[in-house]
């Protein structure tokens, strides 16, 4: 799976969690600008585990990992 494929899947999942059209979510937007709170963020982490079989909740994530959807896709790509 390429980083771009991961990015597309992430956009699809995030769009369904925040109830927005996926075309309105740019891959260079930081997560906190998507209007997410703790619960929404955890829903995204659960989506990542279910989709990519990766548990990120305990892996010491910081703002850099979530700077953009692109940066998260690249982190997931490295871990897969």
């Amino acid at each position: 799976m390429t980083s771009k494929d991961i990015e597309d899947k992430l956009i699809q999942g995030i769009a369904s969690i925040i109830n927005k059209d996926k075309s309105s979510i740019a891959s260079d937007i930081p997560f906190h600008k998507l209007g997410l709170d703790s619960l929404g963020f955890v829903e995204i982490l659960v989506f990542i585990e279910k989709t990519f079989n990766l548990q990120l909740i305990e892996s010491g994530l910081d703002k850099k990992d979530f700077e953009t959807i692109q940066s998260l896709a690249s982190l997931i790509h490295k871990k897969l």
Partner: protein
Amino acid sequence: MKKTTCAGNMSQVVLVLDSAIKHSELHSRLMRFINEFPAVYGGIHRDINLCPYWRISEKAEENLNFTSYNCSNEGDMRTLLGECINKPFKDNSEHLAFHFINIENQKSYLAMTFDHRLFDARGAETFLKLFQQHHENNNDPAISSGIPFTAPAHLSGWLKKFLAGRNVNRKIIAMSKTPPEILPIPSGRNKRFKFRLISFNQQETQTIYDNAYKKAGYLMEMPFLLAVVMQAMHELFRKREMTADSYLASVTIDMRTGEDIKQELFFNHVSYLFFQAQSEIMSNQKELINSIKMQMYEQVKAGIPRDIMEASHLTRIAPLPFLKKIIDIPLKGKISTFIFSHVSKNPLSPDIMGTRIENVFHMPRVSVPPGLGFFSNYFNGRLNLVISYLDGLISNEEVNMLGKNIKEKLTEIPSPLVAMARRGEG
């Protein structure tokens, strides 16, 4: 009646305004606005062989409960706000009341008291947002167009709801292995609630958000705030020399997914997450935060909040006292040590009828037991925390202690040496 997880409770949202509004004009504008929403004059009905539903009377009463007060200082204002939320609605058809408090024509407070069957907290804020828009658009009647007022009376998808109920029941039984400690409910029939508002300025709020990031992680404000409240509660139990094995916090969460919630304005859309923590980890904030984060993750993954929403529809066919017993028996009546919520978004515009909104906070009455809740919200760069408690449950001294402990732990700025030690330097 669409969702009844908070049926029967009352709450109050308070807008702090930087000057006075002419109360007669406010009253007439509110009256015109409310009359666009006949749903507020509805009520629960149950016809023969039908599940309960929200029925809007053909001849709505259209009589807005509005009171205005003048007072000379903030102390009197706080007493008045307490009176407003403790005053019951006049009957089953009243679900909304407005109170305007003017302090020496310099500052004013607009409080909207509401029945949780009509709105939840976010719905109430959005309703006030629509009032702002109604005023800005010269009383445009289209403000209420496209908002659904009714929910189907029938109960569909029985199997799904019963399976959800079974999952919730399993979760409750799992939690009951170590029943949480609660504060003893005062005897007597006193149902009055008292409130303590802790308001943080913008700088303190920034420190709290920085601490949340450093201690709990990215976008993890809720686990940080909850951990601090749990630690303060543990301290209170310790001071009372009450030995507790564990504490349980019920956290209310909004189940709407979109930012624009006009379509889901009415009725209740909240569900719950449950966080249990053993008293032995209370002195270790890092471990406590990790435990809260993992419990949140596991419950979201297992779909517990959705199951609670689904199962709550069973209240349409099973009486609430029966369902309450199902929860009460395994937990021995100790449903939770306290209720908690954190609302990080607010839809309101910065002013209302030309007057600037300085702050917004909520004053919910909490179900008993536990009769104690902590409610934080964010507005205009500031965080508020309201402690809501049944009169007599905790003393004034104890509320002061809770407030002081929470404030100190939230706004703590570690000294450079402590910060270095935490990073493993030096």
